[in-house]
């Protein structure tokens, strides 16, 4: 199919790394509350946002994901006491790296969502989906960019 068709059919694909204790639980709560949000995000469960290796993020972009959200407990509330502090530091570095690589840093997002913040899950995923949609497809890193 032609690039344009691809463009028309294009829907942003967003990968969400959610920590098991806060954000994943928050997403469950959003479900219980039947809070509707765009179906573009795919939630991947990790024990702690501190478990998210930047390598995973780069990989995701290489595999053609358009946006990545790393979400965990609020600073100070980490189930493992300090994990999300590392997340915060790595996030800032990652964004610098992305700028350096010439890719929109907004494609990588970082949020703190507690297990009681169902509505925040809805709001965050909605706004990020729109933000990424506005940015358009991730062409920079995807390794299949020369195919078709």
């Amino acid at each position, binding site marked *: 199919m032609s690039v344009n068709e691809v463009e028309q059919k294009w829907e942003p*694909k967003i*990968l969400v790394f959610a920590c*098991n204790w806060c954000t*994943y*639980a928050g*997403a*469950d709560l*959003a*479900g*219980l509350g*039947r*809070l*509707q*949000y765009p*179906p573009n995000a*795919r*939630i*991947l*469960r*990790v*024990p*702690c946002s*501190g*478990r*998210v*290796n*930047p*390598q*995973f993020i780069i*990989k*995701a972009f290489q*595999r*053609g*994901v358009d946006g990545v959200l790393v979400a965990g407990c609020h600073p100070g509330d980490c*189930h*493992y*006491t*300090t*994990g999300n502090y*590392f997340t915060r530091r*790595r996030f800032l570095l990652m964004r610098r790296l992305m700028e350096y690589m010439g890719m929109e840093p907004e494609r990588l997002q970082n949020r703190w969502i507690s297990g009681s913040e169902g509505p925040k899950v*809805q709001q965050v995923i909605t706004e990020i989906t729109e933000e990424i949609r506005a940015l358009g497809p991730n062409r920079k890193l995807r390794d299949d960019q020369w195919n078709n």
Partner: protein
Amino acid sequence: MKRVGVFVCHCGTNIAGVVDCAKVAEVAKDFPGVEYSVDYKYMCSEPGQEMIKKAIKDNRLDRVVVASCSPRMHETTFRKCVEGGGLNAYFVEMANIREHCSWVHMNEKEKATEKAIDLVKMAVAKVIKNAPLQKATIPVTDRALVIGGGIAGIQAAIDIANAGHIVDIVERDPSIGGKMAQIDKTFPTLDCSACILTPKMVEASSHPNINLITYSEIEKVEGFVGNFNVTIRKKARSVNMDVCTGCGVCMEKCPSKVDSEFELAMSKRRAIYTPFPQAIPNKPVIDRVNCTYFKTGKCGICQKVCMAGAVDYSQEDKFVVTRYGAIVVATGFELFDYSVYGEYGYGKYPDVITGLQFERLVNASGPTMGKIKRPSDHKEPKNVVFIKCVGSRDVAKGKSYCSKACCMYTAKHATLVSEKIKDSNVYIFYMDVRTAGKGYDEFYNRTREQYEANYIRGRVSKIYQKGDKLIVRGEDTLISRPVEVEADLVVLATAMVAQPDAAKLAQKIGIGYDKDDLYTEAHPKLAPVETHTQGVYLAGACQGPKDIPESVAQGSAAAAKVCGLLSKSEMLTEPIVSEVDERACAGCEMCVPICPYTAIEMKTISERVHGKMLERKVASVNSGLCQGCGACTVTCRSAAINLKHFTDEQILAEVNALCL
């Protein structure tokens, strides 16, 4: 090649109402590794689970994906299920197509179905890489340590002991009893503190399962839940406990007198002493700093007068290492040092005292035999002023928090004054009166109405000496006028603060503490006596200001947790922990400081390289301490450390699958 079975749940219409489950099952058939795929109404139901077990056998499945609700709901269910089907419990993954899909995309059936397919795809990719994991068991030492012999610690110890476990109470002072032993009466019932405490002290000391280790401190804590190795320093008592009869002659004869800590320097004790008459154990210690013999080498009177020959100057500190299954920290509090308040005289006015000093002044066995006499001239005061929140709720000079017990004990003090001193006047300067608690507010109102205490809403701005009076200046904020009281005695309700060495102890044990050095509970609501370190529990004011009933309740709560832990000889540990690939580990030690549980230490291994035996350091994870957060995996430069069940390979496989 793995053989994966996919089971898509309708959850009635919860999922099927939005997601085309049949289609999901159909599409899943083509995913790499999938041998079998089916959809069904209720996977968690009995027939649903049977269906899974059967499918495992019939299709020789070795991995299972259940696409249904949240794993936080049914992961354990399906782990048991596949185990029943003859697989390792960790060979199942769940795709959350309910909470994360059907329920949140109700109006986008197609998109929802697409998403469900993706989620299943990810789960399949991951489960293929799942390794068999076994819950390890670690032995649990059936012995508990209680640090601190105040009311909270005593209560915890008694409850644990009554459940049939051995308990050691380590107390820093020569006697157990803590602050409660210094208190005269208790609110709101006004029954005598000693009368209700001493029986408990006796019970603790005489209980077959309880050992008192007094005049001792915690030196070192190693190990982990079920197996703490604790080094205790037994300070040299200079008195042989086994032969001492506690007759007390030595204390009468000892020539060197020093301020009594127990009486808060309002009376003297000897250099060889028990802190108070009802002390337990009621056998003296020698305070070597003030003992003439230890200062000059002369004297030795106590030794001469001791019939039992118990006095032993040659004793030295002993260190004993004991193994405990659980630890209760009940180290209590100290009183805020109000001498930082220049406006209150920097502590230079003798007749400005603390609430605890007042307790001693009204106590029948106290320095004044229970007659309220002010320190300066031993006159009976007529006008007594109480000032609340001294050091509490004061960001500038004290603590930001409310010390909680002061409102009540100040009310209590007020009643005691008017009971003991006829035609006395009591003035209480307060900012708020906080008397939440059973019978508390009633007590406060009695204090105002029956005992006619004058409550003045305002924080005192200045106290100064004028002749033999103390002038107390503040604003009565309810009439908006500056007011002055000519007081004979001023009693400060000083804040409850953490023990000066609270932080040091916390670091030894490996538990958290806040900006005020108060110990942090695992969860402020749902885990109030637990800490983030498994097997260590909190009781009493070391966790935050508390009154007696609360401390007792928390002591019992901590005891219940300990009993739960000690009730089994072994405990299962979650196998989702980090593991080190020693071949790859470069020994850079980056992971060690990252671990919030100090679960990683370096060990030396020797290996044969080109026929030579070489030694090198590698990281090793203590699976008892590791809680499986995975922080270490990210820092490892040689990718040698990995988190079981959430390995780099598994997560990358999921990421990969998402875009196939």
